[in-house]
């Protein structure tokens, strides 16, 4: 395990500028990643879900969720601008989004599965950031966490409703079978150099492998324990 060489809190953007270059790079990398992926997720999953939702109640709920995900992008982008990340690098055109967004969303059931699984994965990432040494980022994580929890709970609640019918159960299982194999890669490669940098700088506490294992445990509890569906077999080591 790589020990963190920086453990004292970095209290402000101004204080960040006095930190070693390696620390500044780590902060910029992770803020940029969140800014890009929050925006792209809203564009490819949350906005299209409004049209897919089966009634006005869920359509308007999807509207709000899309707004909240977009709002997360705005907050990360604002922090990114403060710490000197060029605006163009905080868009999907400027930096390639994560591979989990390559899944072509076609149905409401798929959207519910995305929220159930991908937002649970996001919760784990944000949990880690809530203990990071760069306090503006820690505070941002604390701000977004309640909405991330709601989004994941929304996925669980809607899937719970859907699996009450045989047809719904089949659709949710099919969505899981197609989408879930993309999830382990969300946590990054094992023995990742970026992850080692983050841990050395006290930006993250856990390895990608540990976070992936934690995610698999938590998602299995929901999918198999609660929904009584089968979690597809996946290669956990990315």
């Amino acid at each position, binding site marked *: 395990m790589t020990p963190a060489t920086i453990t004292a809190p970095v209290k402000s953007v101004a204080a960040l500028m006095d930190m070693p270059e390696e620390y500044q790079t780590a902060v910029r990398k992770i803020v940029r990643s969140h800014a890009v992926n929050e925006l792209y997720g809203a564009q490819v999953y949350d906005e299209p879900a409004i049209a897919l939702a089966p009634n006005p*109640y869920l*359509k308007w709920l999807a*509207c709000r969720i899309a707004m909240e995900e977009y709002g997360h992008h705005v907050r990360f982008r604002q922090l990114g601008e403060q710490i000197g990340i060029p605006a163009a690098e905080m868009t999907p055109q400027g930096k390639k989004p994560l591979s989990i967004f390559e899944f072509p969303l076609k149905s409401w059931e798929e959207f519910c599965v995305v929220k159930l699984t991908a937002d649970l994965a996001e919760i784990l990432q944000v949990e880690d950031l809530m203990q990071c040494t760069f306090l503006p980022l820690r505070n941002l994580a604390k701000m977004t966490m309640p909405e991330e929890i709601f989004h994941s709970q929304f996925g669980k609640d809607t899937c719970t409703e859907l699996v009450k019918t045989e047809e719904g159960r089949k659709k949710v299982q099919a969505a899981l079978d197609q989408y879930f194999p993309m999830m382990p890669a969300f946590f990054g490669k094992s023995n990742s150099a970026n992850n080692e940098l983050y841990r050395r700088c006290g930006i993250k506490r856990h390895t990608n492998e540990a976070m992936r294992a934690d995610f698999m445990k938590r998602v299995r509890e929901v999918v198999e324990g609660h929904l009584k569906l089968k979690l597809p077999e996946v290669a956990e080591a990315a």
Partner: protein
Amino acid sequence: MNQSLREDSAPLAALRNSLAAAPWFAACGQPLGPGERDTALAYLAGLGFDRSPLEGVVGWSEATRLIQDPGWSRDLWAAESAAEKSLYREGLALYGESRLLELLSEITEAAAPIHDNVLRALSRAQIVDATLAKVAAGAAAQACHQQALAILGEAPPGHALTRKFQLFARGRWPLGLVARTAYVF
């Protein structure tokens, strides 16, 4: 850059500045006044639903039931979506994609605090329902987005989506059509 494209819109700035002061959801449950009925009927007529009877809705539980009723009108939703697309195309021609999206995003960001108004309205009705609060806030945000499109697409003043926004801005929530009857909360 095409010099003929516009950069800013004073009416859009006025819309953005007005959102914080509007009495979002404050009139929900009260009887509809004549002016509100006229606005609602103009909204429906503008989308081709001029023969729909109009009913008020007295409480949040009834409103919640109506917006999940299997008999909800997909046609009204589709008509709104078609109007949005048409206005988006007009806005695109006037502002270009990048600036149009920036301006629409400003309204989306300005509409985010409406969630607090919903929480207050629910609190007055002694309801604690985090999901319903987000549903209502989402509906209001959609109306703000549609009004922004109407402004940027230079729709005439009485455009259906403007009428819909006016209902929201007066504290109402147009819930849509169920079994051919229009409901405004």
